[in-house]
């Protein structure tokens, strides 16, 4: 690396509608991570895992559809979930960087999935009490799925971490690479603060505390070491992404853009 990367300024925007932005964050995390997981379809290391990862991808895409549909309704400009998924540019995506990283090997996919699934299950527990009725109702649905997701990825983290020398090495390498992306899940900007004040979203610090407890317990059981000195990255919530998201979207959005309005 010889020169610092040029800063990417998000395009000028209208005053943010905090709820719209928050729903995009929820939707985009799951849309992007679900797409990454779906890349395993037909490539899983064993048949059961191929099926499991594809099932989880489908759940995440289903959840993304619902959050983005709600976002479109809140925005009130006639954009539905498909318009938001397929016709926004990379700077308009609000997912955390954790979700957009390439899938890596199976160890990387599983460790990333566990870090996200634990966050999802814990966040949804808080969202059950949201003052936003529709969000709270959907949380009661999604939490059932999030719980079996984290059960799956958590068990695999233990199997890989506390497994063979090679599986341990790969799981630890994945954790070392991924840990710095996790604080972004819990950042609190003006949007989070406003929604917390309105009782719609929880205090991010509480979510993080619970997450730390669950994740560190499983990582310890997996004999994996948390890289404490990792420097956190951020920017995804404001539309500043790694180079990987643009490439992923180019593929994900190509069919919808080649045939706008197509029905099947």
């Amino acid at each position, binding site marked *: 690396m010889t020169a610092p990367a040029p800063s990417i300024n998000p395009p000028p925007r209208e005053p943010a509608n905090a709820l719209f932005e928050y729903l995009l964050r929820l939707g985009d995390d799951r849309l992007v991570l679900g797409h990454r997981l779906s890349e395993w379809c037909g490539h899983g290391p064993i048949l*059961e*895992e191929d*099926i*499991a990862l594809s*099932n*989880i991808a*489908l*759940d*995440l*895409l*289903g*959840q993304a*559809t*619902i959050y983005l549909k709600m976002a479109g309704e809140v925005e009130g400009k006639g954009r539905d979930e498909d318009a938001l998924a397929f016709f926004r540019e990379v700077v308009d995506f609000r997912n955390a960087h954790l979700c957009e990283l390439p899938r890596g090997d199976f160890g990387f996919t599983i460790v990333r999935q566990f870090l996200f699934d*634990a966050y999802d*299950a814990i966040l949804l527990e808080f969202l059950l009490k949201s003052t936003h009725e*529709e969000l*709270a*109702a*959907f949380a*009661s*649905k*999604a*939490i*059932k*799925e999030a*719980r*079996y997701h*984290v*059960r*799956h990825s*958590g*068990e695999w983290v*233990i199997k890989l971490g506390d497994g063979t020398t090679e599986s341990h090495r790969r799981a630890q390498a994945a954790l070392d690479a991924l840990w710095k992306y996790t604080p972004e899940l819990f950042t609190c900007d003006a949007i989070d603060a406003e929604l917390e004040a309105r009782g719609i979203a929880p205090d991010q610090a509480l979510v993080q505390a619970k997450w730390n407890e*669950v994740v560190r*317990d*499983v990582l310890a*059981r997996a004999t994996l070491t948390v890289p404490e000195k990792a420097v956190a990255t951020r920017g995804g919530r404001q539309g500043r992404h790694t180079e990987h998201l643009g490439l992923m979207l180019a593929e994900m959005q190509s069919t919808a853009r080649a045939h706008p309005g197509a029905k099947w």
Partner: protein
Amino acid sequence: MVTTAARAEPTRDDVWGWLAEVMDPEVPVLSVIELGIVREVEIAHGAVTVTVTPTYSGCPAVQVINAEIEAAIRAHGVEEVHVRTVYAPAWTTEWIAPEARAKLKAYGIAPPGHLLTEELVPLRRASAAVQCPYCDSMNTKLRSEFGSTACKSILFCEECRQPFEQFKAI
């Protein structure tokens, strides 16, 4: 073209009866009523509104089911049909009736067990014994919580040496 005389407004019981014939496209032995996804039927001024709750967020059958519910009601001469989706209370396999569980077993899918409360990532998974739908043996093992559709797990029977699916409890 069928000429229809003015029909009497259907009753809620009529509509529930019609929906009892709409089958789940992926598990065609269960109707949408037996599956427990139809939550409410309302009739006002000849228009029928059916409230449904999805089984899984990403289940591709949901759209097909909604379309089939609408078609089944229209087939009885109702012109205005609305299918409304609600998420709470969230669908649970506890809503599948005992007769429907027997139909699942006869179809070769082990019926769902009952929900067990568990910590997020259990060290040893609490699991109730599942009976093989083919040979009735209880000597079975969970192979994967994920199966050919979102609603099924894969198990293996140690007795008759057959893999089989179970409707998973959620």
